[in-house]
């Protein structure tokens, strides 16, 4: 498979791009991010129903569109480039992956609604301080069989305040499990966080005897969550690729057009080298992100290493691209009004979310089986 000339990818990319050309302009982004919900419902309807974005990579027998994770990565890359706020990541990458991977036949109706864009969802896993590890969840479950209640709290829940359904990690008898919670459930309090990146809303949730439904995991919930986190890291890397490319495009365009000292600033070596450095990191990322996305379906045993690798690399790459974009634009780059700040904040938050570059390099060493102290 040669990713550069894959016709499926081309057609998916084209559909998403045409949609974003109409509904995902910078103006649309700024307008959507200021809303309470955090995204535009018409744009989401178009994305999920016309393009079927939430169904990509989900098997047809579960109501999905077929295709694979590599095709979903194309969608995410385009969205990352446009920065259009959307419940796609939280719904499709976090919640749907968790539900599908659980193997629980009982959640099929929920999966079908989610991939059809009828409902939105998210995953609540992070404990205080942003620790994304199932064993550290600060939600506790009690009850049995069909009737459970949850107590506790979770933070940094993506689209946490607006999601129709939450997949919540909670300890039942000290063991992590996954539960489905309705967004309007009794005892659920959702408080939006004031986020740096306004294109990606987050919330803190508090649960007090909140009714919940157990998601039966064929393997352990812990292993499901671990898989979801790796897949999410790859998904985020695809977004980061799109965003970084857009930053480089803006930088190069400006460097060609901005005249100072009687010549375009792109003729100065310092500017050329900044752009070349960003391209070097971007170009290196591309094949790796595509390989990682492909491996989700075709070589899952390679995913843990690839996920750690691409998330660490793409986080640093996107931060570099966004920072240099601001630098190359000079004073304008520093303004609220100019697009660079939106990308910088997305780069900043993406780098810290789901594990920092250092966390992922540490995981990589462990997954490669190196050293004794780990």
């Amino acid at each position, binding site marked *: *498979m*040669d990713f550069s000339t894959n016709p499926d990818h081309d057609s998916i990319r084209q559909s998403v791009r045409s949609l974003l050309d109409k509904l995902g302009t910078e103006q649309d982004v700024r307008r959507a991010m200021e809303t309470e919900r955090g995204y535009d419902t018409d744009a989401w309807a178009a994305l999920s129903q016309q393009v079927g974005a939430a169904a990509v990579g989900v098997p047809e027998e579960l109501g999905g569109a077929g295709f694979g994770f590599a095709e979903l990565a194309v969608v995410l890359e385009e969205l990352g480039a446009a920065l259009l706020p959307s419940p796609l990541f939280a719904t499709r990458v976090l919640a749907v992956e968790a539900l599908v991977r659980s193997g629980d036949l009982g959640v099929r109706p929920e999966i079908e609604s989610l991939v059809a864009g009828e409902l939105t969802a998210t995953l609540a896993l992070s404990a205080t301080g942003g620790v994304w590890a199932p064993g550290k969840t600060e939600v506790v479950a009690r009850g049995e069989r069909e009737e459970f209640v949850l107590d506790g709290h979770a933070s940094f829940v993506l689209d946490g305040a607006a999601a129709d359904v939450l997949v919540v990690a909670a300890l039942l008898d000290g063991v992590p499990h996954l539960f489905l919670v309705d967004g309007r459930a009794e005892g659920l309090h959702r408080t939006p966080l004031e986020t740096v990146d306004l294109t990606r809303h987050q919330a803190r949730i508090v649960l007090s005897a909140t009714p919940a439904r157990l998601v039966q995991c064929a393997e352990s919930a812990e292993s499901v969550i671990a898989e979801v986190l790796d897949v999410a890291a790859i998904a985020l890397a695809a977004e980061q690729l799109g965003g970084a490319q857009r930053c480089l495009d803006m930088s*190069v365009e400006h*460097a060609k057009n901005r005249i100072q000292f009687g010549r375009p600033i792109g003729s100065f070596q310092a500017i050329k080298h900044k752009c070349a450095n960003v391209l070097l990191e971007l170009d290196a990322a591309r094949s*790796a992100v595509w390989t990682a996305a492909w491996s989700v379906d075709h070589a899952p045993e390679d995913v843990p290493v690839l996920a750690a690798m691409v998330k660490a*690399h793409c986080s640093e790459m996107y931060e570099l691209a966004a920072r240099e974009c601001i630098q190359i634009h000079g004073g304008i780059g520093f303004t609220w009004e100019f697009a660079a700040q939106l990308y910088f904040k997305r780069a900043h938050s993406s780098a810290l979310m789901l594990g920092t570059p250092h966390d992922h390099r*540490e995981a990589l*060493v462990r997954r490669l089986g190196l050293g004794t102290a780990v």
Partner: protein
Amino acid sequence: MTAVVEAGATDLSADAAFRAEVRGFLEANLPSGWRGVGGLTPGEYEEFRAHWRSLLTAHRLIAPAWPREYGGGGRTAVQSAILAEEFARAGVPRGGANDPFSIQMIGNTLLALGSESQKARFLPGIIDGTYVFCQGFSEPGHGSDLGGVTTRARRDGGEWVIEGQKIWTSNALTANWIFVLCRTGDESASRHEGLTLLLVPLDQPGIERRPIRMINGTSEFCETFFTGARTQVGLEVGGVGGGWRAATGLLTFERGETTATLPVRFRAELERLRDLLESRHALDDPLVRDEFAWCWTRVELMRLSGLNNLARWERGEPIGPESSLEKLMWSELHGRVTGLACRALGDEATTYSGPDPSSYFLCDEPGAPAGSVSSWVKVHFSALGETIAAGTSEIQRNIVAERVLGLPR
């Protein structure tokens, strides 16, 4: 991680039969327990290399992609890359120390641009070792700015007479011929139009080779002085005034193969580094772990990009400015790998001990002992030259900015 390889490109797997043939050759001709030339002493390596080259010549594996009429293997470019990859993995050389210049550079240029008589004379002779070439491009006054070279050649009857000086002439002492970029045009000719690439025999009174000692202590390259040096008319590659085209074309010929071999060699070097770090318990330090993971990631990124580039090259798309990205990547990575080794060695890396590296350019060869201090330290110093030779990092960045991104000159 072989499954990962299937994801991108073709892994050159269309030629699985040829790959099996190469592996069979290696197995039949290498001693059991062979770890790579890195495990040999310099003396043993020299002996092995001479014998190995004869073997490759006899099997038409020394210039696999050249036409059989010249002694080549008549193979495709892809098969040549497969061979390069397998040889890198086995830790055996492709030929003699000068063959990158004789075969990959001038030989391939002759195939593309040479006259029939030049091809008939030099190609078989390059293969059988009659002609051993080195490269005369850079001058003290012109390194990055090669287009301005001043070594001059003027016609004198049936000969060219050459005056000037070349520098950084690698492996000049083991060569018997040199290809020299000379100025032949008069003042009215443009910079590039006035250049000619001449083939010149080295063993003559008008040429003096003086070794230059490098930071790593060896003298692999020379200054080469031309004082009334002579060569026959008819030995212009690409014609009189065709020197710039020949020289720039020459530099592109080895690219498909380095894409295939570099990740193999760098991965082998990383494995040696890992052994070193584990033996010193250096991986207990989280900063060392972080740096190792960074290096490992770089090599893997190179490998995956390489697979994509190879797929395009296989389809006949030329590898252009992407090779600058590849060069930037590995040359800037290398110093960090060797730097990490030196850090683990600590005070030991302020001294020399243990066997010297068997090669000073790129990574040390597979089979080199993990703990050899001299090996790591000397390659660490050699790595300083890798961001300078074959196009400095600054020039590579300019190339990328101008030719890939379209930024103005």
